[in-house]
């Protein structure tokens, strides 16, 4: 790691609320409170992980990050661990104005770059690899030095981990996260699979604080549901 330059010192603006489709501000508020209630240490590093892929983990992490920027103007990092897809960088580039920052982490076989989303306090990470086929995530988190430095810069680090089916790195990262949240898709994620992920995370020493139940269908009409 060469150096870290803190974000800030400039006027920040809220992101367009139309970027958020699934979560509501109160959802983000509820989620952060419950996470921090059960998190260890400062609760700054929150990892979202799903067992299979397609559960909506990245969407939940992204919208959670966007909504958290509306609560504070302190810098928030959306750490994209789903390497080497860099899906968040592409999504924000398409929907917002990405501004590259001077923060850069040099790692073996590549470098970790950070982009500020418009004038908001949200920063997303992008991993640029020198060689294909090498996953440098382990190097990134070894010794927690890099992560500790990031903790110093950002008030909240939201890590979007790859699903267990695709990579074990997400489970490995959970040992360094202050809180780990599983994302379960209603009527799709099989319970034994979720159970397997839960056990692996616990074995890894993760602070598993709970799960987000995503894509839940309401078969009872809304008006009736409200009455109930």
């Amino acid at each position, binding site marked *: 790691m060469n150096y870290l330059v803190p974000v800030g010192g400039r006027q920040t603006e809220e992101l367009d609320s139309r970027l958020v*489709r*699934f*979560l509501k501000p109160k*959802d983000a508020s*509820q*989620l952060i409170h*419950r*996470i921090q209630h059960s998190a260890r240490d400062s609760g700054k590093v929150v990892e979202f992980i799903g067992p299979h892929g397609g559960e*909506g983990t990245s969407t*939940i992490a992204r919208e959670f990050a966007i909504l958290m920027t509306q609560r504070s103007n302190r810098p928030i990092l959306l750490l994209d661990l789903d390497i080497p897809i860099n899906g968040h960088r592409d999504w924000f580039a398409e929907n917002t104005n990405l501004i590259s920052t001077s923060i850069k982490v040099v790692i073996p076989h590549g470098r970790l770059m950070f982009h500020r989303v418009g004038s908001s306090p949200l920063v997303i990470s992008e991993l640029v690899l020198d060689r294909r086929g090498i996953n440098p995530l382990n190097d990134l988190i070894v010794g927690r030095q890099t992560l500790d430095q990031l903790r110093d810069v950002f008030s909240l680090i939201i890590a979007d981990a790859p699903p267990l089916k695709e990579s074990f790195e997400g489970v490995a990262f959970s040992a360094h996260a202050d809180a780990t*949240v*599983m994302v*379960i898709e*209603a*009527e*799709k*994620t*099989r*319970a*034994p699979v*979720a*159970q397997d992920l*839960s056990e692996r995370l616990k074995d890894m020493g993760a602070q*598993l*604080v*709970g*799960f*987000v*139940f*995503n*894509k*839940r*269908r*309401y078969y009872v009409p809304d008006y009736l549901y409200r009455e109930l």
Partner: protein
Amino acid sequence: MIYDRIRIALGALIPFAIGTAAALAASSWYESTASLLVLHGSEYLAKSPVSASVTALGLEPKQILSAEAELVDNRNLLIQVIAKVGAARLYPDMADAEQERLVERLSSDLKIEPVFTAGVLRLSLRNHDPEVAAKTLDTIIDLYLESRNAAVGDRKTASMTQQADQMAAKLKAAEGALTQFSVENGISDMAEQRTHLLRLRSDLTVGQGTVQSNIASRQTELQTTLKQLKSIPLNIRQSSSSGRVRELENAKASLLTLELRRKDLVTRLSEDSEEVRNVDLQISTVKSFLATEPELVHDSDRDIRNPAYDTAEKHVASLDAEIKGLEANAAQTAKDIAAINARISALDGLAQDYDRLSEAAHTAEEPLLAYLPKLEDLKINEELSRRLSSNVRVIEAATLPTQKQSNRTVYLALGIFAGVLGGLAATFGRTSLRQVCVLPSEMEEWLDLNPLLVVGYREPEPAP
């Protein structure tokens, strides 16, 4: 999700389709109903074998109704009902089926519903024909009551009835033989028929005698007239004083006619009869007239035909014809008498067999006539006794149904219900088999973790 929808739709549609098909194929029927009131009769009380006293042991009302229901739905009773109503009429589509299948079908069509609180048996029978349904149910009730009475009642009447039936059969056979013999031989009543024939023969014989007598008298009269005819001149001379002459001639002709008439009357009547005396008076009058008149002198010589001769000649012809008619009559009467004699002889020949058959019929009838009043008295006594002790009353005879019924609505409702159940089963079956969770609480149980947030499903945005 599409896969789930198809599965759920199939799970719902297949039972619904089956229900709909069953509803469309379901046949309709008429249902006749009847009700029987079952009271706690003496037959349900346990009686002491050595004395007439009744112990406290008896059947409960529920047991009584159940026992009566069993009597109604008895296999032997149903067989009798089928035989009485006729299998072809009861179930035309099973006319050639085995008896056991017919009994099963009738048993399934017959519903017995005991109403324990009221002590009532409600009977209902369904059939494609309303009249057959009502008649069959009536037959079931009748046979049930009969069999019940036979089971509960005194058997003395049954044995006496059987004896009376045997006697009646014997009498019927004897009467049949007598009737057949009578028909074959043209006999209605032997004695009366014979008496009639004898009377007829007697009448004919008397008639024949009279005819013979008439023939003889006519022949005598004919001979006399012929003799007179010979003495009467064929022509007579007519004078110019024709008016006077004609009066005398007419008087002579009248005298002759009167004399002939008198002879005829004398053959049939006595001399003292009034008619003969009248004729005699007329003859004397004519004779006195002729005696007072002087002999006529003829003025001319012209001859004319004698009217007296003509009158006598006509009378001869008339007598001749009458004699021939009487002879023909006598011949016919003789033939009739011969035929009657032959018939009487034939009857005399059949009399022995007829008497034997009549005696047999009479012998068969006599004990039956003596037996029947006793049996009738016994039956009346037993019926009175039975009515007093019987605990079953028909409170509603079999009704003639007018409303057609079918299970279509039931099948359709069942199809819909099964469809809903099938859909739900498919939904929950798939969910449970895949071990996925619909509710966050289910996953909470699996993971032993708290749900931090529940995010509702939203359709993905369409691609631009």
